[in-house]
């Protein structure tokens, strides 16, 4: 990342870097970093376009619910998150629900 990320982008990067291996979904992430969908998704789209985020579709959604789109940081994303200045105190909230770990990994963003 060449420019310094905005505070919101930095919050999303930190949230994703907090549990690197886990796939996260948008609504959960928005709840954690206290961002509305109108702010969160443009950030996710930008991070994905820059190769900092990889995505896949949930493989086995429970109970007829449509598959969720899941996100996690790529290697470049992890490095970008590590390069961020120290986090501001406790804006983040605890994630409400974990994501099913059996997600099928398509990991296109990292390519």
């Amino acid at each position, binding site marked *: 990342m060449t420019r310094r990320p905005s505070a919101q982008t930095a919050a999303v990067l930190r949230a994703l870097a907090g549990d690197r291996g886990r796939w996260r979904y948008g*609504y959960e992430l928005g709840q954690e970093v206290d961002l509305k969908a109108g702010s969160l998704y443009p950030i*996710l789209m930008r991070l994905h*376009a820059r190769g900092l985020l990889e*995505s896949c579709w949930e493989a086995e959604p429970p109970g007829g*619910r*449509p598959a969720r789109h899941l996100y996690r940081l790529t290697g470049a994303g992890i490095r970008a998150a590590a390069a961020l200045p120290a986090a501001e105190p406790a804006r983040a909230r605890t994630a409400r629900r974990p994501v099913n770990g059996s997600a099928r990994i*398509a990991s296109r963003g990292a390519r």
Partner: protein
Amino acid sequence: MSADLAGGVLQLVVRALPARQAEWGDAMRAELVGIAGRGERRRFAVGCVLALLRRPAGALAVGRWLVCGVLLVAAVALGWAIGVPRIRAEALGVVAGLVLGHRLLRSRIGFGPVAAARGARLLAAGGILAVGAEAMLEFRRLRVDPPLTLPVNATTGVYDESRATWNLIALAVVLAVLLIALTGVTSGRVAVRPSTIVLGAGTAAVAATIWLAVVLFHPAASTGAGPALLGVLAAGLVASVWAGDSSWAPGEPAARADARQALVAGLLAAAGTTTALGLLMDLLPLTGHWVANDAPPGFAAHPPTRLVDTVVVWLPGLVFTLGLILTVRRSSQAPHSTGSTEARSTDDHASGAPMTTGRDVVVARFTR
């Protein structure tokens, strides 16, 4: 706005998006299903719609659908206003035929969806606007209510239904040819480079603007077909030469592809200029100071000061447009064309999200 209405709007916006962008929309729709509480669902859906519309591709796609919707309503309203039942039915039939034909052309069996490149999407929207505007102008001329216009028999002074029918047939042919060329050139499956589209359409816009400025600000300038057609030819030549590669060498595949792009740019510029000039020449008589050369005697409410050759401009435009269709069709069949590869890679770059297969997965889940 209720939660379900917001979800419906989100679904409509997602359907309007190009395939690669729509994957993000599908992701939002999938999230929406799992959110509990009407208020929360509504806020989430509204946020998602705003996020999609803030993207240039999203705004363009939705804008194109809005333009199409407004044009369709206006064309049907003007067609409905034609006082003669048979002509009214024929006019509405032309609208229905064009809409159906356009949907077919954009389907898998036709040229397919618009390319993701911004130039292609702008041209697609502008072309639809031009086709709709021309249909509306013609419908306006076919009304029975004052001012009586084109279909009036000059000797009897009554509405000439047979002439009105022929006008509608000519209109349907011209607009159908325009739509075929438009969907072909702007299709993501056709090997027309985004830069070729920008050059061809941009040259046409500049040429038409120059013509309009000259005839508006220099009353002595001729508004006949001769100078207009010279301008059309000049636009075609300029675009073609500009697009041509200086290293052109006959027989080499890459050079042949470049030559084809130059041909497409030239034909697009010529066809675009004739379409724009034809539209302007149909619009100018609305001011009362201009009159079309095919109008019956005594048509103008006020004494006209200028004459425009609408028919003489539309006819060569038809030839250029047919040439464009043939060239584009051959481009889409060329298996080793370099343009195809470049167009696809540019589309991927423009979309900013090189995801393709996932959408098929989630669409299948939604449609089950």
